[in-house]
């Protein structure tokens, strides 16, 4: 019996592809991923939870007579891989035949990227614990009204991806991420409000625990004493985090998969104006510091930069090999796999609303009255087909260009296309939250339901 440990990942994916061909697949690919994870959660200065993890597995995708089948396993023994290949072939029997089921050929080259911080392996656990403790301490020390730590944590992930396909692709990369998160609760007169701070990066040395803790405190404290507003139509200034929540909805509608299946509000609008003049939306898997950057996507297609909306005009959609073949265009390198357990879907890499020129402070100053929106709830209930949304909202009321009282328990409703058209100011403060980034924006008029 051959022991798994003796096979490296490249041999493993190559063996899986060979097996698939031998059992009769016309085309096959194998995707190996491995993840080492560390999570340290601190409360009241003590390590409350510590998690160390190691996970790996392989996903095998194949095409037989135009039909697609997929199977995965976490057992990397050769017998198990053979069984997985056979399962994928059985699954292909019931798949609908489609000539657009294609795999990419090897590219000339992949972009060079430095995605790994080797220091993560050298920094002792104790130092990472101290970092988490520092996040909590700085947050709680920043304002005495912070009473409860919901979470203060340090997290890191070191990952490795290897892919092979029967057309000759064989490639791999390693990467790492680390970051801190704080969610703190401030209390005053029976009122309790939560705020969060987070920062993730590839470089351990770039982490600033104090900034993370303070941000959480700042956000919790400013919501104390929040009340409900009366229902009205008003200007709304979105903070960058809230904008990224809406970008999630836009991203799914910009996937060619959604367009081809008639569930995108952007279908048939390429070349048309779909947003205000200042709006540019980009997906870029090659940004040097981007947390979702990688040399290639889940099918082995090189990552690239793609303009989706440029100066308000819809330029195109995100593609994987299937959707690209169906539209007769090249793939944009957006075949996304969340792990070895999923076949490549169309997904974003680093997806962002390009910054404008306004200072975010000036956006608030230039707003006579309106809502500074800092939190939305239930974004997943928005309708990606019609673009209608109706979400819980909280924020701070703006009066004569100044932030005044906090407000909560309201609902903001509208349509995403109308929202895009009504963006009248865009800040220069682009900020990424993992894979999605946005600056502060202002939307001219939205219904805010309250009392």
């Amino acid at each position, binding site marked *: 019996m051959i022991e798994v440990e003796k096979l490296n990942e490249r041999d493993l994916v190559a063996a899986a592809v060979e097996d698939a061909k031998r059992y009769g697949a016309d085309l096959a690919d194998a995707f190996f991923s491995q993840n080492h994870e560390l999570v340290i959660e601190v409360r009241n200065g003590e*390590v409350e939870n510590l998690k160390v993890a190691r996970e790996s597995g392989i996903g095998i995708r194949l095409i037989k007579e135009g039909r697609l089948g997929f199977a995965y*396993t976490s*057992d990397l023994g050769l017998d198990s891989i053979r069984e997985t290949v056979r399962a994928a072939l059985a699954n292909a029997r019931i*798949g*609908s035949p489609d000539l657009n089921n294609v795999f990419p050929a090897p590219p000339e080259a992949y972009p060079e990227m430095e995605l790994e911080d080797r220091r993560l392996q050298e920094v002792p656990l104790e130092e990472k614990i101290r970092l988490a403790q520092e996040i909590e301490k700085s947050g709680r020390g920043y304002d005495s009204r912070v009473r409860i730590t919901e979470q203060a944590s340090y997290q890191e992930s070191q990952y490795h991806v290897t892919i092979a396909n029967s057309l000759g692709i064989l490639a791999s990369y390693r990467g790492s991420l680390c970051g801190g998160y704080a969610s703190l609760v401030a209390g005053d007169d029976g009122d309790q409000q939560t705020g969060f701070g987070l920062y993730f990066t590839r470089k351990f040395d770039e982490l600033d625990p104090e900034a993370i803790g303070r941000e959480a405190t700042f956000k919790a404290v400013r919501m104390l004493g929040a009340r409900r507003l009366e229902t009205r139509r008003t200007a709304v200034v979105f903070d960058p985090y809230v904008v990224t929540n809406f970008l999630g909805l836009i991203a799914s509608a910009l996937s060619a998969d959604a367009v081809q299946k008639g569930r995108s509000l952007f279908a048939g609008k390429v070349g048309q104006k779909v947003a205000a003049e200042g709006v540019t939306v980009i997906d870029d898997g090659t940004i040097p510091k981007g947390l979702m950057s990688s040399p290639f996507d889940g099918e082995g297609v090189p990552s690239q930069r793609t303009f989706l909306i440029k100066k308000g005009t819809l330029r195109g959609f995100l593609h994987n090999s299937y959707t690209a073949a169906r539209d007769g265009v090249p793939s944009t390198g957006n075949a996304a796999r969340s792990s070895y357990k999923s076949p490549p879907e169309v997904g974003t890499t680093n997806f962002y609303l390009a910054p404008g020129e306004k200072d975010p402070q000036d956006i608030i100053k230039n707003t006579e009255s309106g809502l500074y929106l800092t939190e939305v709830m*239930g974004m997943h209930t928005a309708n990606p087909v019609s673009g209608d949304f109706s979400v819980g909202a909280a924020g701070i009321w703006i009066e004569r260009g100044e932030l005044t009282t906090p407000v909560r*328990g309201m*609902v903001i*409703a509208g349509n995403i296309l109308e929202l895009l058209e009504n963006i009248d100011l865009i800040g220069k403060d682009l900020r990424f939250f993992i894979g999605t980034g946005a600056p502060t924006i202002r939307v001219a008029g939205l*219904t805010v339901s309250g009392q």
Partner: protein
Amino acid sequence: MLSKADLEEILQVARRGGDFAEIFIEDKRSTKIGCEDRKIERVITGHEQGAGIRVIRGENTAYGYTNVLKKEELLKLAERVGKAARENPVETIPLVRRESPVKLPVKRRPEEEGIEEKAELVKAAEEAARSVDDKLVRQVTVGYGDVTQRVTIANTDGVYVEDERIRSRLSVNAVAAEGQVIQTGYESAGGTQGLEFFDEEKPVDLGRRAARRALLMLNARRAPAGRMPVVLAGEAGGTMIHEACGHGLEADLAQKGLSVYANRQGEQVASELVTVVDDGTLQGKFGTLRFDDEGNPAQRTVLIEGGILRGYMYDRITASREGAGLTGNGRRESFQHRPIPRMTNTYLAPGDASPDEIIRETRAGLLVRRMGGGQVNTTNGDFVFEVTEGYLIQDGEATVPVRGATLTGNGPEVLKQIDMIGRDFGFSIGICGKDGQGVPVSDAQPTIRIPELIVGGILEEGDCDDRG
């Protein structure tokens, strides 16, 4: 294969680092079939295995997992997870197997049924949805999923459980379009059964219901905005009770002071009409369990009785922290996660009123026949959820359908306000997310009336707000 003796040895190593050690071994086989655009596109089978080791020392938990199920690997992991603390000499703990009185018979085991059988269920639902109106129904997405999860749970209290959980589910999303209006209808059903589940919950019915809802909503008006009485029909399912009250009664949130229900046992927290129960033993329901993921028997727990808070849902850590009894709510998504208090099947118990009477006694308001997703901020109790099938109530009658409504309110306030409770009962299922872990749950409720809730709709330019 790991023997009981191996597990005892691994636990012994882990336990050196704390007061308690546990191992959770999982072997999961799953199937997913996705159909969209009249094509079966995604056919996925998976096999995943792994083990998680947990060591608790005082208030601290160390957790580690691996998917290499070899004794040497697990001993290494046990040492790593346990080493956070000083050496604690320990003896071997004999493991005693636990049995459950809850029988969950499965007639047609998913892993023994062919993939073709499952594909037929998907096709039946898809065709039924299309056939409701072949012109207006533009897109139908059907998702089938089954899971066979085998777990072995052992800990240094001597608990040893071997269990198997089998679940099947089917969901249908229909998109209908006419002119510029596009609307969707969603239906899903699932249970702790094999393929025989679909003899009762017929795929054809699910498909038709989803398509009919999408069509109905095409002709719906935009929902009104403002404060009004809301009648939630039993068939709307229990999303509301899950969001507005269930999460706040999970002991971890309550103990951290993150719940509006913290330290309120014995107090009147809801209208006298309100009784809320979590019951993991209901036959065949999506959140049903023989044992939770810590090896404790599932049970029925009364959370609120006649408006009075009776208790919370606990896992091992939270129960021992306050000396409470275990409730069988320690659940986890997989071996990759430590268990935390979670709901199973949670419901608001039925009352006496007839559902029709509740509507008749409401002069003007909103009737909700179907709810979509929701979210709650447990710290302050604010919740929001979407209405996927709603009607205006005018002079005691449900009239025109409305779309785009979202209900927002505050859990404790709503529970105090409920003034009518029906004798009907309806379930909904879902994968509930908390701390990054999804677990299958079901929620249920009768028809209820909430005298005042905020409905978020769209105020057109120039509308005046007659309530402001």
